[in-house]
Structure formats: structure tokens, C-alpha cells
């Protein structure tokens, strides 16, 4: 019996070993000489990871990747026009499923990747999808009922809170774990050193410009117990931004910007706010965690080594890390779909994604986070990013098909919340926007089975997790 068991274990080990080394069966040079056209967003990860890897990819496979890299707004329009025109020259595209994923899926513009994932000649046997993918990433993959695997979610950048360790230590301020502590810290760290009435350092910095605020505001909305939408008893999707909890969130976020942020925040785009933070003008900065690369760069920042990243403080509704993930997909009209998949499969292999992870690009592969060679930029950054990728949900925009108009409507409420601040005015603006959003849902989503990335998909954060990134940097004893 023992020998039989031993034989069985040995046979299984051999079988697993064969499967495990099946990656050698993928002939990476099978499309040698091909050229792929890729349309990507401008982001730090392009130069940090995608471009260098494209060179290595070409060396190993003989496939050249021509990248068209434009600002997100421009590349989205470019991709949409090419897809609507069934342009066969677009092969690979980068997108955010919580943004245009629903539209592109509904229109059938994205190639179903299921056959490629199961094809041993195109996918390494140890690819392990979705087994090796973090929960937050997988939650954002499908936005329409019955949707196929038409994208690979590769990056888990999260909207988190960048904080100045040195200022919190110098003024002995408690690092916030809830909303009340956050406002108290913002107040204490709005510092007017020379007493001229103009603070040299502002307590809080975040997006304050119209539609862009939805991304930085989302965690505050959900943590307060609010949401973009809710489902009524009869199953109808309606806007929820005028609920008491949502208006509480608008009021709170608006007050933070109005009282503790530089006025420039009202017109700044994320790069300008990141530059202000890197110039040492703010104690806290609500933004995507990849901007840590700028504030930690001694050549470009005055606060290199002084900043870390924590989770957005918990609110009365809980803690919902906002995870606007990024996906990669193949155009339905590409004439080089297999070569395009080979590129995606190659880029999203474990050891290649690990390289991105080590270049401070938060990846969706679980194994990249647990690899012994991985070292986070700061312990707090690593801990907050990992928890966000695990518990996060893509709530950066109102989950809808007509995403542009929804963001604009929510942005108008935020403008009132920031500029006016009067509760009745915010409520009135939220009521008006909610009515518009509900009507727009009825107009654009009827019969579509659009589900979006709903918070119900996310798992509740365990007690104590909120504190972990703070403790990781040794900041948990401050303010006591």
C-alpha cells in the first residue's frame, strides 16, 4: 500500500512536473517577424515597465510592438474610433473595465480570450489564471452578465492616502484611521509658519476639479455609507448620490478641500497636485499610489524618503479601497490575434510581472506580492497597496454605460460641495444630479444586463487591516 501510494505521489509529481514545464512548449517565436500595434495610456508604468519589456519581448519572440501612447482621454477616443470603424490595424489596447469596459463589451469590440487561455501552444501551463490573480482585480474583470474573459486585468493601482511621515512625527499627529481623525490631522497640519495668513503647508490635497473628483472621492463616498447607485426593491438601478450618507460624504470631502487644500486644487489635474505634494506643500495627498514614484524621486521631489502611503481612513459605512484597475485586451478586428495574445501572455507571466512589481507598478498577480525578491517602496506603500488589491473595488466612477455624463453630473455636485458647502445646496444639487443619472440609466442600460463593478462583489475588510500600513512604517504610536 505504501509503495502504491509512493508510486501515485511520484506519478502525480511527474505529471505536475510535465505540466509545470509545459511553458517550454509555447513556441515564443511562432510569430517571428510580426508587428503589433498597441494603443496605451500615458502613465508611469509605460516607461517603467511596458517599454523596456517590449524590447525584451521582441528579442525573445521576434515580434515588434509599436506603441501609440497618449493621454488617457485622447487614447480612449482614438481606440473608440478605431474600434467603431473596425480598424484591423489596432491589435492590443489598454483600458479600464470600470470606465469603457461595459460599452466595448456590449458592442462586441473585444476578443474573447477563453480559447487562447486554454490553448497550450499559446499560454504557458503555469500561467494560472485566475488562480494567481488578486480578488480586487478579478472583481473588475466582468461588468456585464454572461461576459466572457475579454480582458486580462494586469494592474491594481489604488486611490490611497499619501502622507508625510516627517510632518506627522514632527507635530506628533495621530495618523488617521477614521474620518474624524483625518479632518483633525488635516487641520493640525495646515501650517502657517510665518503667520502671514497663507499656509506654507496645507493639511490635505486632492482632486477638486469637476468630473475628475469622482476617482479621488469614491472611497469617501462608500466609506460614509453612500454609493453611486442602488437597486430598488423591484430591481431597478437608480442613482444614490442624494442619499443622506452620500450627501454626508460630499459635504465632508468638500469641506476638506475648501478648508485645508490650496485653492489651486480646484483647477489642478492629478499631475499638478502630485507636483505640489512633491514640492512639500501638503501633508496628505489623496491620489493613485503610483504617484509615490514622483514624491520619492530625489531628483524631482523635495520630500524623497519622507512620504508613505496608507489606506483611506474608515468611515461609518466601512472601508472600501478604490481600485481602478487597468486591463489589456485584443481588438475583435485585429488580423494578428494570436500574436497579440502571445504578447499579452508573455507580458503577464509571473516573472515578467514581478519585474513590474519591483519597478513600483502594483500588479494583479498574487505571487508578485509574495515573492521573496519583491521589496515595496515603503512598508506602508506595500501593505496598503496589497490590501487595496485584495479588498478593493473599482468604484472610481459611477458604474454606468454613459460614464462620461455620469462623471460630469457627480462632478457638478462636488463643485457645489467644495465652493458652497451649504448642506441644503449640496442636497439640492445631488437631487438634481440623481434624477438626471437615474433617467440616463433607464435610457442607456435597459435590456443590456449591465452590472458594473458593484461593491457587493468586494469582501469586507477584516478588523485591524486599516492599521497595518500605519504600523508597517512605525507610525502607529503617534499622537498618543
Amino acid at each position, binding site marked *: 500500500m505504501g509503495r502504491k501510494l509512493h508510486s501515485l505521489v511520484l506519478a502525480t509529481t511527474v505529471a505536475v512536473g510535465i505540466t509545470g514545464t509545459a511553458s517550454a512548449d509555447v513556441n515564443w517565436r511562432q510569430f517571428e517577424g510580426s508587428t503589433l500595434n498597441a494603443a496605451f495610456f500615458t502613465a508611469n508604468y509605460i516607461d517603467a515597465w511596458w517599454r523596456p519589456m517590449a524590447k525584451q519581448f521582441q528579442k525573445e519572440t521576434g515580434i515588434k510592438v509599436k506603441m501609440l501612447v497618449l493621454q488617457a482621454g485622447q487614447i480612449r*477616443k482614438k481606440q*473608440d474610433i478605431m474600434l467603431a470603424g473596425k480598424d484591423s490595424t489596432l491589435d492590443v489596447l489598454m483600458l479600464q473595465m470600470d470606465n469603457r469596459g461595459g*460599452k466595448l463589451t456590449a*458592442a462586441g*469590440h473585444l476578443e474573447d480570450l477563453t480559447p487562447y487561455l486554454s490553448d497550450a501552444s499559446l499560454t504557458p501551463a503555469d500561467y494560472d489564471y485566475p488562480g494567481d490573480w488578486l480578488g480586487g482585480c478579478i472583481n473588475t474583470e466582468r461588468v456585464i452578465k454572461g461576459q466572457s474573459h475579454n480582458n486580462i486585468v494586469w494592474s491594481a493601482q489604488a486611490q490611497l492616502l499619501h502622507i508625510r511621515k516627517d510632518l506627522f512625527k514632527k507635530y506628533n499627529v495621530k495618523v488617521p484611521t477614521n474620518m474624524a481623525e483625518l479632518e483633525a490631522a488635516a487641520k493640525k497640519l495646515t501650517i502657517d509658519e510665518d503667520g502671514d495668513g497663507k499656509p506654507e503647508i496645507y493639511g490635505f490635497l486632492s482632486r477638486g476639479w*469637476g468630473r475628475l473628483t469622482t476617482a479621488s472621492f469614491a472611497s469617501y463616498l462608500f466609506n460614509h455609507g453612500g454609493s453611486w447607485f442602488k437597486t430598488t426593491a423591484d430591481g431597478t438601478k437608480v442613482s444614490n448620490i442624494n442619499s443622506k450618507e452620500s450627501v454626508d460624504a460630499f459635504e465632508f470631502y468638500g469641506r476638506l478641500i475648501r478648508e485645508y487644500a*490650496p485653492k*489651486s486644487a480646484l483647477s489642478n489635474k492629478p499631475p499638478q497636485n502630485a507636483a505640489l505634494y512633491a514640492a512639500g506643500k501638503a501633508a496628505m495627498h489623496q491620489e493613485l499610489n503610483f504617484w509615490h514614484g514622483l514624491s520619492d524621486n530625489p531628483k524631482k521631489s523635495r520630500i524623497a524618503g519622507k512620504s508613505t502611503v496608507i489606506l483611506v481612513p474608515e468611515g461609518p459605512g466601512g472601508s472600501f479601497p478604490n481600485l481602478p484597475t487597468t486591463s489589456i485586451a485584443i481588438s475583435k478586428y485585429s488580423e494578428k490575434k494570436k500574436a497579440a495574445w502571445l504578447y499579452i501572455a508573455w507580458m503577464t507571466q509571473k516573472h515578467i510581472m514581478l519585474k513590474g512589481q519591483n519597478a513600483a507598478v502594483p500588479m494583479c498577480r498574487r505571487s508578485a506580492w509574495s515573492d521573496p525578491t519583491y521589496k515595496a517602496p515603503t512598508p506602508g506603500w506595500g501593505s496598503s497597496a496589497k490590501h487595496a488589491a485584495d479588498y478593493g473595488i473599482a468604484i472610481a466612477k459611477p458604474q454606468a454605460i454613459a460614464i*462620461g455624463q455620469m462623471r460630469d453630473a457627480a462632478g457638478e455636485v462636488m463643485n457645489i460641495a467644495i465652493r458652497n458647502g451649504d448642506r441644503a445646496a449640496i442636497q439640492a444639487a445631488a437631487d438634481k444630479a440623481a434624477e438626471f443619472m437615474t433617467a440616463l440609466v433607464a435610457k442607456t442600460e435597459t435590456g443590456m444586463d449591465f452590472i458594473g463593478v458593484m461593491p457587493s462583489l468586494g469582501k469586507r475588510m477584516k478588523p485591524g487591516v486599516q492599521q497595518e500600513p500605519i504600523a508597517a512604517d512605525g507610525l502607529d504610536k503617534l499622537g498618543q
Partner: protein
Amino acid sequence: MAITKAPSSQHGIPRRLVDWIDRHMTVVFNIPTVVFLFGLVAFPVMLVLLTSMTDWQLILKPDPDFVGFKNYLSAWQDPRWINAVGHTFYYAIVSVGGQFVLGMATALLFNRSFAGKAFYRSVWMMPMLSMSVAISLVWILFFDYAYGILNLGLDVIGIDPVEWTIDPNWAMPSLILVGIWHHTPFMTLILLSGLQSLPQDPFEAARIDGASRWQIFMHVTLPLMRAHIAVALILRSIFGVKEFDTFLAITDAGPMWATETMNLNIYFNAFEYQYMGEAAAKGVWFFFFILAVQLVLLQLRKRKWSY
């Protein structure tokens, strides 16, 4: 005298073809222009008219239905569009008015002789040569509430800082300021060329009759400059109504849509929201507005003025 018969073809072109071209010279020479105009003007215009009567959406409704004039009517139920029409004319009138006053003043100045005139004139014309997006990026820095040069200047003279592009009430005046700075040199250029082409006799006669400088300006210079003024106003009004790039780069139609013009509204409908049919209908309305502005200004030019 013996006449040498021309060869049947020259450089391989049959004689009959050459004769035909000779007879139909007007038609032949106009073919490239007609093809060009049809391809780049008439065809797109027809396409826009056709699109404006459909419910085409770029991604979600690639096979549109015919909806007649619905999009033309629904545009006027959209409060953002109505506001955008107002913003467009507010910007065009105030901005072009400011450019005209400043342009005329500088044209009169540069029409006189003074030391270093060529240098100052060159410097004055420089904004006109700058690219809109480049100057927009510079003005964004100027308008910065905390670190912009405008508020630093106000601070020096003891005036509270202004929320230039942040405050909905200040955003449009800020863009008008940029428009005046950017386009006044063009106005100066046209008006200066007009001033330099005027006959001197009427001015001498007015001076002999004892007219003051103001009277000469009002009753001699302005009437004689009428054609140049009309050209400058027509051109700048059309460009003013069409202004797009500085608006998009500096305020992106905000804050709270306070700087959304017709152009931007069409852009948002077409490329942000992807309602191509509605955007095309608004585009046609926009065309009629520009046509109306042109017709009004042309009528003003043709009118016989009495002074």
C-alpha cells in the same frame, strides 16, 4: 509661305486631347478645385446633415435609425447647450470688442514715428505668432491662485488674490483676457495697414478747418477705415465664436460649465458622450450662428454711413 503641319501628338499626348483641353480650358482648370471642395467641404457637410438626422452613437449604436429633425429640436431642451450659446456670444462680443479698442489704439500709436518703433512693433506682434496650446499652458501658470504671476502682482499692490479660472464668475473673464492678449496684435496688423493706406488730403483739410484730434479720428479716420474695420471685425468675430483650443486647455469648459461654448458642447457630445447625431445637429445650428454673424457684419459694411 509653307506652313509646317503640327505633329499628331506632342510628348505622346494625342492632338485631339490637346485640342479638347484648349476648348474646355475653364472646365479643366476648375476640376482640381471642384474635387477638393467636394471632398473636403461638400461631402463632409452632407455627411453631417445626414448624421444630424440619426440617433447614431459611436460605440453603442453603430447602426443608427432615422429620427428626422428630433436632434435639432432636442438641442433647445438642453440647458447646457442654451448656456453654451450665451457663453459663445458673450466671449465673442467682449473679447473682439476689447481687441478692437486695443488694436485701434496700438495701430494709431504705431502709425506715428518714434524711436525703436520697429522693435516695439515686433514685440507687440509676438503673441499672434504663438501656438494656442503653448500659450494656454503658460496662462495656466499665470492664473495659478497661489503661485501665479497675476496674483503675485495683485499682492504687491495690496489687492486680494483672484480665483481666476477657479471661480465660475471669473473663469470667462480670464479667458477673455487671454483672447485679448493673444489676438489683439492681429487686429493691430489689419488696422495699421489700413491707416498706412489712407490718403492724407482729408486729414490736412480737417486740420486746416481747425478740427481737434478727436474730431479727426471720429469724422475722418473711422469713416475712411470702414472697410478695414469691417474685415478685422468679421475675421475676429468668426474666430472668436469658433475659439476652442484655449478653452479646452485652460478651463476644459469648467468650472461648473461656466466656460462651455457651442464648440465645446459639440465636442463633449460627440467625443465624450458619443452622441454623434445630437452633436451633428448642434454643429449645424453652430454653422447657422456663424453665418448669421457674417451676414450681420457684411450688412454693416455695405450700409451707407453718414458722418
